[in-house]
C-alpha cells in the first residue's frame, strides 16, 4: 500500500468535516475522491497534502507517518500536488517554474543548469516546450494546469494529488489530460484526484471513494459506485413517487 489512511478526523468549529475515514491506495492506482460540495473530499485532500493538521487518525505514505510533516517534507518524501485554482510562479519563466521542482523534491538536480535541462524534458512531456522562455503568468488556463503537472512531476514524486484537474477545461482538453494521466501511471506514478467531472472520472479512475458529510458511503469501481443507490440519492436526490 502506497498510502494508508486510518481513522482520519477533522473538525472546523461545529462542523465535523471528516469522520473516521479509512483509505487504501496501492501503487500505480488512479484513485478518485468524489462527493458533493461540503462532503469533505477537499479537506481529506488537504490533510494528505499537509495543508491542514489532522485532529485524529493516521496518514501513512510508504509506511512513514505523515501527520506532523509540513508540505515541504512531504514533497521530499514523494508526495506532490496541484491546486484547484491554478497557482504559478507568475514572474518566473515556464522553464524556471519546473526547474524549481527539479532543485527541491525527492532527488534534486545537481545544478541550476542541470535542473533547467531536465525541466525542458518535462515541458516536452506536457506539451509546453514552445512556451519555455515565457513568463508563466502569460499562459492560458489549460497551459497553466499542464505547467502545474510538470512542476509537480519535477519533484520526482511517487504520489500525485490532483485537485479538480479537469475544472474549466473543454472536452478536447479533458481528453488530453486523461491521456497524460494514463501515461504518468504507466511511468510508475500513483494518482489521487478530487473531481466533479463524472465522464473524466469514469475514463480515468481505477477505483473511487464517494464521500458525504465527511463519511465514506461507497467505494469501488467508478461504474459501481456511481450506480450505488445511496450515491445516486446524494447526487441526484430521492427518486420521486
Amino acid at each position, binding site marked *: 500500500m502506497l498510502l494508508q489512511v486510518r481513522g482520519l478526523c477533522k473538525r472546523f468549529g461545529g462542523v465535523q468535516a471528516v469522520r473516521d475515514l479509512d483509505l487504501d491506495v496501492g501503487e500505480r492506482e488512479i484513485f478518485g475522491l468524489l462527493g458533493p460540495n461540503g462532503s469533505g473530499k477537499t479537506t481529506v485532500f488537504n490533510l494528505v497534502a499537509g495543508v491542514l493538521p489532522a485532529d485524529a487518525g493516521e496518514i501513512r505514505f510508504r509506511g512513514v507517518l505523515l501527520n506532523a510533516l509540513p508540505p515541504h517534507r512531504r514533497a521530499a518524501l514523494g508526495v506532490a500536488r496541484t491546486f484547484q485554482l491554478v*497557482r*504559478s510562479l507568475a*514572474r518566473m519563466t515556464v522553464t*524556471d517554474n519546473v526547474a*524549481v521542482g527539479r532543485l*527541491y523534491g525527492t532527488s534534486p538536480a545537481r545544478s541550476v543548469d542541470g535542473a533547467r535541462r531536465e525541466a525542458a524534458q518535462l515541458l516536452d512531456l506536457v506539451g509546453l516546450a514552445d512556451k519555455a522562455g515565457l513568463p508563466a503568468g502569460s499562459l492560458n488556463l489549460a497551459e497553466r494546469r499542464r505547467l502545474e503537472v510538470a512542476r509537480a512531476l519535477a519533484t520526482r514524486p511517487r504520489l500525485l494529488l490532483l485537485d479538480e484537474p479537469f475544472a474549466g477545461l473543454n472536452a478536447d482538453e479533458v481528453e488530453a489530460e486523461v491521456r497524460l494521466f494514463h501515461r504518468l501511471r504507466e511511468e510508475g506514478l500513483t494518482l489521487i484526484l478530487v473531481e466533479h467531472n463524472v465522464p473524466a472520472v469514469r475514463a480515468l479512475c481505477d477505483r473511487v471513494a464517494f464521500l458525504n458529510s465527511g463519511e465514506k458511503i461507497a467505494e469501488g469501481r467508478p461504474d459501481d459506485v456511481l450506480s450505488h443507490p445511496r450515491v445516486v440519492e446524494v447526487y441526484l436526490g430521492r427518486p420521486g413517487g
Partner: protein
Amino acid sequence: MRPALLVALAVLACALPWVAGEAVVNWGLLVLLQVVVAQSWNLLAGYGGQVNLGHAAFFGIGALVTRSLWMGGVPVAAALAAGAVAAAVAGLGIGLPSLRLRGPYFAIGTLAMSEILRIVVATTLPEVSALPADLIAGYRLLPRYYLVLALAAVSTGTVWLVARSRFGMGLVAIREDEWVAETVGVDSYRHKLAALLVSAALAGGAGGAFGYYHLSFYPQFAFSPVWTFDAVLMVFLGGIGTVWGPPIGAAFFVLLREALALRLTELHVLVFGAVFVVVVLALPGGLVDLLGVLRRVRGSRPQPA
C-alpha cells in the same frame, strides 16, 4: 551588465582617489555605502519577497559594535566582522518570531522593533561619540574608501551569486507564491531566515564602515529609519530584484539629492516622493529596465507610411 563596462567601472572605482579630489572621494564613499545598504535590503525584499522596514536596526547595531570595539583598541577588520556578526545575531532575534508573520505584519513588526531599538539607544547612550585624539591624528580617508568599495563589491557579488544559485531560485519561488514553493519542497521558513541573516550581516558591515568613517558619530542617527527608506527608494528606483538595480539606484539617488538639496533644501524630499511614484507606476522594473521599456515603446509605435 556587459563585462567590459563592469571592468571599466571597477577600474574607475579603484582609481578614483588618484584622479579626483577628496570631496569626490567622499561622495564616492557615500554612494558605495548606500550600495551596500541597498543590496542588503534588495536580497531579502527583491529576491525573497519579504519587506523588512526595520533594516536600519542592522545598520545601527553594526555601527555601534564596530565603533565601540575599534575605539577600544580592537583592529578595525575584527571590529567590522564583529559588527556584522552582531547584526546577524540581531537578525536571528528579529527573524525567528517575525518570519512566521505573513505579508504586511512582517513589515510592521520589523519597523516597530527597529524603532524600539533606536529609542533605547537614544535614551541610554550619550548623544555623540567623538574620537580620541590619537585616532583623529591617525585618520586617513583612503583606507576607508577602499573598505567601503570592497563591501560594495562583496554585497553585489553576494546578490549575483544568490540570483543564480539553487537557494536563489527557492527564494524567488517563495516570493512569487510561498504555498507553491512549499509544495515543491522548499523549506520557506529556513530560506527566509537565511536571506534575513545574510541581509543583516551585510547591512551590519555597512553600519560598521559608517562607524569607522565618521569622526563624530551620533549613535541614534545610525538607527534612523532614513537608512531603511533611502535603501527602499534606491532599490525601487534602480530595479528591485535585480543585481545592478541597487547600485544604479544608489548612484542616481545620491547624485540627484546632491543636485537638488542645494537648491531646494527641504523640498527635495517632495521631489523624491514624486520620482518614486512615477517610477513605481511607469517604470516598475526600475532604471535597469529603461532600455527595455524604450525598446518596447518604440516597437509598438506605428511606422510611418
